[in-house]
């Protein structure tokens, strides 16, 4: 089957030389009460269209809405789920990037869809497939502070049920692929059983393609239990460590494989020969390979994204022999 290209989720919100209104300035003006939320929303939409067009023009087969309203992968949901409040800044895994930590202060209740409206808008603007992206329950819990349930498993399962409601709403809105981001698992491998239990809840009853993306590390030692689940695809980071290349070794898997092959945390371009060899090698191990950057693109300055994705798409086309 053809190798497909995709991205993980976020895309630079601003960039020098863009003609769309700057999100940075717009948010600043809104915060200063010099701009209404309605105008800010229009600017978010214009920039969503921009990142959709850019991804399509660069040759990304399965795109996202660029998460341009999102500060990180958990707070946009936490802000709308009853029972959370949003606390002070804390570090986002091992990056020099920070997010406001959600705090569970009461029983968590999903009130209404959070991401559906923006998903619908993105889908209406795109010609390529738009995938929906949500945090996985375990990662959501790991990035939060819990002062209510005081039991990790209870929290993960509660989040699993909530994310399941959100995922079903996305499915009803026409999402054909739903991705759950699970970076926390690479730092807490001993909790794989709990993560899987959370994912089972989150994915229960979904008929669309569903799976996880992991990044910032590897799944060495915990890959098999993840293969032994109902999910359709598993995403691995082949840049941050060597571990994922080792776990694939000589084996062939029956699930689709998401493969983070270019480094979205460094501006340096990959060695084109090594990149091609990696993609070639991985394409022989799975019935369906999705090649992507290893993590979200917002760690990069805007100017680097075009050259990076161009290199990635080029390498895939050369491996694939596909004329597009």
């Amino acid at each position: 089957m053809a190798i497909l290209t995709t991205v993980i989720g976020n895309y630079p919100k601003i960039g020098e030389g863009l003609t769309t209104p700057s999100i940075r300035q717009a948010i600043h003006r809104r915060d200063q009460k010099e701009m209404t939320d309605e105008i800010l929303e229009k600017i978010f939409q214009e920039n969503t269209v921009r990142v959709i067009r850019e991804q399509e023009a660069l040759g990304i087969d399965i795109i996202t809405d660029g998460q341009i309203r999102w500060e990180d992968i958990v707070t946009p949901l936490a802000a709308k789920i009853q029972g959370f409040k949003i606390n002070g800044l804390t570090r986002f895994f091992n990056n020099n990037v920070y997010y406001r930590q959600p705090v569970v202060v009461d029983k968590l209740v999903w009130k209404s869809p959070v991401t559906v409206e923006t998903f619908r808008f993105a889908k209406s603007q795109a010609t390529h497939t738009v995938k929906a992206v949500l945090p996985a329950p375990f990662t959501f819990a790991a990035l939060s502070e819990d002062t209510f349930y005081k039991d990790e498993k209870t929290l993960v399962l509660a989040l699993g049920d909530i994310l399941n409601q959100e995922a079903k709403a996305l499915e009803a809105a026409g999402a054909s692929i739903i991705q759950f981001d699970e970076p926390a698992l690479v730092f807490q491998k001993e909790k794989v059983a709990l993560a899987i239990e959370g994912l089972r809840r989150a994915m229960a009853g979904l008929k669309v393609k569903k799976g996880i993306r992991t990044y910032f590390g590897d799944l060495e030692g915990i890959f098999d239990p993840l293969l032994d689940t109902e999910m359709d695809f598993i995403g691995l980071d082949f840049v941050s460590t060597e571990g994922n290349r080792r776990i694939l070794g000589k084996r062939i898997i029956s699930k689709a494989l998401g493969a983070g092959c270019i480094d979205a945390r460094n501006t340096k371009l990959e060695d084109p020969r090594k990149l091609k060899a990696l993609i070639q090698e991985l394409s022989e191990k799975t019935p369906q390979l999705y090649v992507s950057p290893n993590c979200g693109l917002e760690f990069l300055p805007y100017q680097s994204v075009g050259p990076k994705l161009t290199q990635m798409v080029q390498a895939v086309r050369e491996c694939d022999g596909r004329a597009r």
Partner: protein
Amino acid sequence: MAGLLTTTVGSFPKPEYLQRARDDFYRGKLTREKLNALEKQATREIIQKQEELGLDILVDGEMYRGDMVTYFAEHLEGFKISGLVRSYGNRYYRKPIAIGKIRRKAPVTISWFTFSQSLTKKPVKGMLTGPYTIMDWSFNEAYPSRRDFALALAEVVHEEALDLQQAGARYIQIDEPAISTRPEEIDLAIETMKIVTKGLTAKTITHICYGDFEKIYPQMLNLAVDQIDLEMANRDFALLDLFKKRPFTKEIGLGVLDVHRHDIDSKEKVKRGIKKALEIFTPEKIYVDPDCGLKTRTPEEAFAKLKVMIEARDEVRKELNMKPQLTERK
């Protein structure tokens, strides 16, 4: 009995006129000379303010620095500066990119050190950013590995540290806030710090923050410095309990002010922190300071917090019958 000297971690808030001038400079509306004159004015003011507050060891306030890593990268050969990347919320910064061999064309901080030390009889700390942190907070297009990159930076920071000592710095602080990010790389941070402080006779300090310190303790005691400065107030001094179990073998920079809060810390809390530290350390091993740099606070908040800190220190000294330290003289 001497001890419980007070100091700060490095940065102070920039006065409004300087912030405006920096904006104007980046928009091409103000010359480098005029900006520089205002940076000097702000430095004079902050030195004077620190003397008024009664701090024992001063800093130059970093009025001329933007980001603590980008500032050094802008002054070193081999770096260029990226387009904007988001740090959090709606905050963006320009991140350094190593594109060639990193070299120090000329001393980076020495003229500012000399200038600020000329304004006071109290000791001024030389302030550097450590090689591990510069590496971790930069893009790397030039070196084959993180280790190669960090080792190259270590040599450069070492040269700068030697020059600071030569210029009269008795205290040299090498900030490594990134050290706690990747516990698996603590050995690299130790290796590079050893290079930075090699042959220094000045008192050496490193500031580490954002910590999961438990994961790098006690290994972090192998950092080749005399003093480790840690944030304590933001976790209500819980870290000190860790040191009760496994002795902390260096001097401690005791963060007693939560710099990420707007409200002014209570004197009682600061005193409690100092007293808790005194259960483990002798007073001369304790340097009292805020958790982190003060540049994110308003000047009013920063000065009010420091006033509380110094009053708390004075009261603890009195309660313990400690003689006030003979003022540190250069």
